[in-house]
């Protein structure tokens, strides 16, 4: 897992698995990296091969953490499988999902869950 801070955003990437076996350590590591200047968290899910409810719980916990600061959690380029789980749980409504083209354009618009339509 790789964590970098750019201005007020903490960028988390290279998370291959976000499941019950890894969610706790990911949460702990990210929380420890959140400084006072961090307002938003971006999690790059383009390489995430496995995601389950524990992983989703971690993302919601991070959302709660930065939400107190007026920030958001953005999920960058989630894989189709991750998108399916986000839609199944309706978490796309509380976590910003940014698709590849939007991410490359620097857009921060909330993702349309009906992707591919």
């Amino acid at each position, binding site marked *: 897992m790789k964590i970098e801070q750019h201005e007020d955003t903490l960028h988390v990437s290279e998370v291959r698995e976000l*499941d019950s076996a890894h969610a706790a350590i990911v949460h702990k590591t990210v929380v420890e990296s959140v400084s006072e200047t961090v307002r938003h968290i971006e999690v790059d899910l383009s390489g995430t091969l*496995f995601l*389950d*409810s524990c992983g989703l719980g971690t993302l919601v916990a991070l959302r709660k953490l930065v939400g107190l600061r007026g920030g958001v959690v953005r999920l960058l380029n989630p894989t*189709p*499988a991750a*998108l*399916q*789980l986000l*839609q*199944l*749980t*309706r978490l796309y409504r509380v976590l910003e999902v940014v698709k590849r083209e939007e991410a490359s354009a620097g857009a921060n618009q909330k993702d349309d*869950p*009906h*992707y*591919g*339509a």
Partner: protein
Amino acid sequence: MRAHSIGGSLHGLMAESCSPKPAPACSEPGESVHTGLRQVFLPVVAKAGFTGPAERPAVIRLPALEREAGATDPPEKSNPGSVGSGSIVLICPGARPAVHALAQSAPLALTPILGKSLLEHWLDHLTDEGVRRVCLVASDRPEHVRTWLGDGVRWELKVELIAEAGELTIEEARVKYSANDPSDPRAKPNGVLVMDFLPGAPTRPLFRSYAGWFMAVTRRMPQAASAPDRIGVRELHSGVWAGLHSRISPDAELRAPCWIGEKVLIGPRAIVGPDAIVEDGTVLAADAEVANSIVGPGTYVGEFTEVKNSLASGSTLINWQTGSCIQVPDAFLLSPLDQRVITDRADHALGVQRISFDHHL
């Protein structure tokens, strides 16, 4: 904490005393309707032929196919699905890579479509067409097909199953199952068909993509509901059909067009439709939503779960728009009911106050 199988709870629920009520006034298709009628309890009329695995040899060779006097040429080229009377060679689809996930648990011929398998749709259709003998050629798990088929007497057809190592083309089947001697009654069956579409809908191929499957199946709803062999399907509102022994919370919302199969349980505030099919024996927990999707038989859809643009069956979830397929790792979201235990907590989620587990249909 009690733990019971969901099957037991469903049986208990369905055994509760309830009486049919008149259907409310019709509404326009696509209109969101809050239903007042939520219980359908009609006598079960069982059909023969589902008594368990049939004792048959591993490979059954095709008997002589009778060619009736005046039989016409194979009609599948001009009008697929219309086969005339006499005999027919019916080829079960083998591997279809574009929709491989549909065949995970059973061959495509047995894939459920609106309460029937694809094969059942075809056999019903062939019976109506006056066909008397069917040579069924199966290459994908023929033993499953044989078990399902039994003796085939329920269709009043003579159905013979032939197991092949690989799927035959129409021409191969025509050659292989036609005798060299023109006087042999096998020389020319009335037609050879591949079950790549639903009867009467050759322009809607089932297995070219998940989207094609979804379109073909959802467009079938009105026709399936009006089929003469359907028992107990009621149109609650215009474009909203529900099968026998289904229990739907009064707080649920049904949006046409949608199909609710038999023995379905739909919890409070759940939303079904538009363009949704909930197959037999499925449970939608409270606040679940199913739209532009098909939920396979015996599937549990958990509280607040949203199934959209998807084909869900057991724990398998396919987005028919993108083709993405996952196994949902958390049973409380989506899971097969035969692997699930129901608890008091789940009972609450379903809006069920008391369930008798002692009554079975």
